[in-house]
């Protein structure tokens, strides 16, 4: 499944990535595996003291899912840059879908690059993350 630069068109979409609903187990596993032990993501008592209604997903878990969207499309070694802005909180029970779209193709320093815009949104269409990536071909 090797994609070529010439076969890619601006406006083309990436195969979407739909995740299972976010559970407390998802958050506990990510806490341990990521090394981000901020209790606000796993300890409801701490979350409530911080005036949040419940624990919520690590932003970086959602960014990791967007990373899967990208590396499921092209081999990771082609990834040059990956940037996101966190626009909303992902809660327990949210069903996240990651989507992406090619928005530009250009050459820089002798390298052919494709710019992709990515986003993560829940089952209600609330956007949680907006970002972009540069992929070399």
């Amino acid at each position, binding site marked *: 499944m090797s994609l070529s630069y010439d076969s890619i068109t601006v406006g083309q979409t990436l195969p979407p990535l739909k*995740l*299972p609903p976010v559970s407390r187990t*998802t958050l506990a*596993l*990510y806490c*341990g*595996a*990521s*090394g*981000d*032990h*901020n*209790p*606000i993501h796993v300890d409801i008592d*701490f979350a409530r*003291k*911080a005036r949040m209604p419940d624990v919520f997903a*690590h*932003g*970086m*878990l959602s*960014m*990791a*899912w967007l*990373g*899967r969207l*990208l*590396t*499921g499309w092209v*081999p*990771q*070694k082609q*990834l*040059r*840059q*990956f*940037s*996101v*802005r*966190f626009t909303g*909180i992902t809660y327990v029970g949210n069903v996240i879908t990651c989507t992406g779209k090619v928005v530009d193709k250009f050459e820089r320093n002798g390298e052919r690059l494709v710019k992709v815009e990515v986003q993560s949104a829940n089952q209600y269409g609330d956007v949680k993350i907006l970002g972009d990536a540069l992929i070399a071909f």
Partner: protein
Amino acid sequence: MIDKKHIGKAFPPVTAELEKGRLRFFAKAIGETDPVYSDEAAAKAAGYRSLPMPPTFLFCLEMEQPDPYAWFGEVGLELPKILHGEQSFTYHLPACAGDVLTFSSRIVDIYDKKKGALEFMVKETRVTNQNGEHIADVRNVIVQRNA
């Protein structure tokens, strides 16, 4: 409040090894099913020296220190009040299991919005490997809610 005098503050470098077992655990935690990220034979067949480091794992590896939030107090960040604002990675060279990476970070900007109700801290990190090669740059924006 985050004191703006900390703009330019550099942190002592953090060094951490990229471990295979940890990468497999991370792959499980994010639901990654591509065998390249968990099976070394598949990774080698795909041209990697060992299991490749997934795109966002640099953020995790930098937290491999006794208390990754120790510096929060020094600059005026409070864990219950923070949210992740932005995150960016620029990749120069791949990293694989067995590599030892060094993270050199500094605060490049501190600003606020809504009359201090929201404060922003921008940190940039240069990542090098055991051969001294510059493999990546990381940019992190943390938001503190004071309202």
